[in-house]
């Protein structure tokens, strides 16, 4: 173990112990590590966004491939910094409009097409397990889906038939959340062991 590797080990140990100390109560040692981590993250973002956006997405295409049209998004991007000055903060909205508009356009399509229609297609097919069609599983899948949707139906009081289906729905939901609970606990423990 060379001196340099020992130093590296010490630095990692410092980070780990400083954060673990929070278990035994909030202390200045933890506060120091916490604030250092916040700084490192912000610094990481500085380096990353300057390099991947300003240099790689703007400077190189303009200089190398002379793609002058990229100057416009560059200007809108810089106008985002107007948000720091309250008086001119409205200027940042133009750039934001492009981002929000295009993202909303894509999501409107992908959520309906990929998620709603895609999942409905899956719900109509015969579920198979171990290669063979499994009709019990198909029944469970159909009943579970319909009851879950009914449980999250708010336009009518949960009484009568609607109430009964919603009740079945809550039992399905509790089992699913139980499984989710087990998986989450498992995940947290793996992070401790890792």
């Amino acid at each position, binding site marked *: 173990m060379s001196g340099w590797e020992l130093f590296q080990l010490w630095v990692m140990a410092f980070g780990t112990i400083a954060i673990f100390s929070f*278990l*035994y109560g909030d202390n200045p040692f933890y506060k120091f590590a916490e604030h250092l981590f916040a700084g490192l*993250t912000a610094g*990481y*973002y500085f380096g*990353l*966004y300057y*390099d*991947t*956006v300003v*240099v*790689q*997405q703007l400077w*190189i*295409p303009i200089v*190398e*491939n002379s793609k002058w049209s990229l100057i416009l998004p560059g200007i809108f991007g810089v106008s985002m910094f107007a948000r720091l000055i309250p008086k001119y903060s409205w200027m940042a909205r133009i750039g934001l409009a492009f*981002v929000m508009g*295009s*993202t909303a356009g*894509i*999501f409107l*399509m*992908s*959520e309906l*097409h*990929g*998620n709603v*229609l*895609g*999942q409905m*297609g*899956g*719900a109509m*097919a015969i*579920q198979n*397990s*171990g290669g063979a069609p499994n009709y019990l599983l198909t029944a469970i*899948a159909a009943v579970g889906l319909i009851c879950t949707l009914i449980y999250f139906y708010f336009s009518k009081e949960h009484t009568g038939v609607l109430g009964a289906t919603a009740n079945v729905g809550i039992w399905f939901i509790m089992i*699913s959340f139980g*499984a*989710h609970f087990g*998986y*989450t*606990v*498992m*995940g947290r*423990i*793996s*992070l*401790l*062991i*890792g």
Partner: protein
Amino acid sequence: MKIITFLSTLNRRWVYTLVWIAVIIPLLFPMSFKINTTPEVQSLYDAVENVPDSSTVLLTFDLWPNALAETEPMARTALHHLFRKNCNVVTLTTIPLGGPSVAERVTREVAALYDKKYGVDYVNLGYKPNYVSVLRGLATSIESIYPTDNSGTMLSQLPLMHTVKTYDQIAFIFIVADNGIVDNWVSIVNAQFGKKMCAAVTSVMAPKLYAYMGSGQLTGILGGMKGAAEYEQLVHKPGLATIGISIQSLVHFLIIALIGLGNLGFFLERRAKQKEARG
């Protein structure tokens, strides 16, 4: 009555020490149990096996630094599996913190074992903001979204990128993620461009993906350290996950015991109160 007082006043520090013990014992005396494969992991393995050899596969590192214990073993095993099949690997990430650095480091380490050359056999495109632009934009032209790779070399100088222009030249997408990005890969890329894909995710994210598995939008799921351990068995590359999963067993028993004990105390207290109310 004595049990109730003991149960309700157990100090949290005791519980912490119990957890430490439950982690350290299996480290000292390793116990190994047979890890059998669940259907989701088997169909993921088969899907990657069916990818034609020496075709190009997109491997994503959509992961933050905090869940590397679960996601890094999956990425490593996937790289072993793909390089063994002589596939070209293009890596990218939609996560700003950690994604680019981990993709760079892990891919280079595993590629060195198979003496793969950067630029010819594998390329790291790195990170670009606004994941929606990346997922949707790669369908039309990779070069327009990624003018250069992660270290700033122009794509025109990388031989592999001369042939790989859009999703059409990519045979399979292997997603490694610890957040909800898999939903977007499925609802944008799989639904609109029909790319076959599978997802290796942290345990927290796994239960949701069964719905995508059921509708055939995903061809396989690796869930948390257990999924990673099964995949390592199938690829015959036992690594961090196989060791980790055996340690985990004892802590799981501890948690279940704690829930049971806690509820025991709760019921005894409630019965005692009811007796008092009646008495």
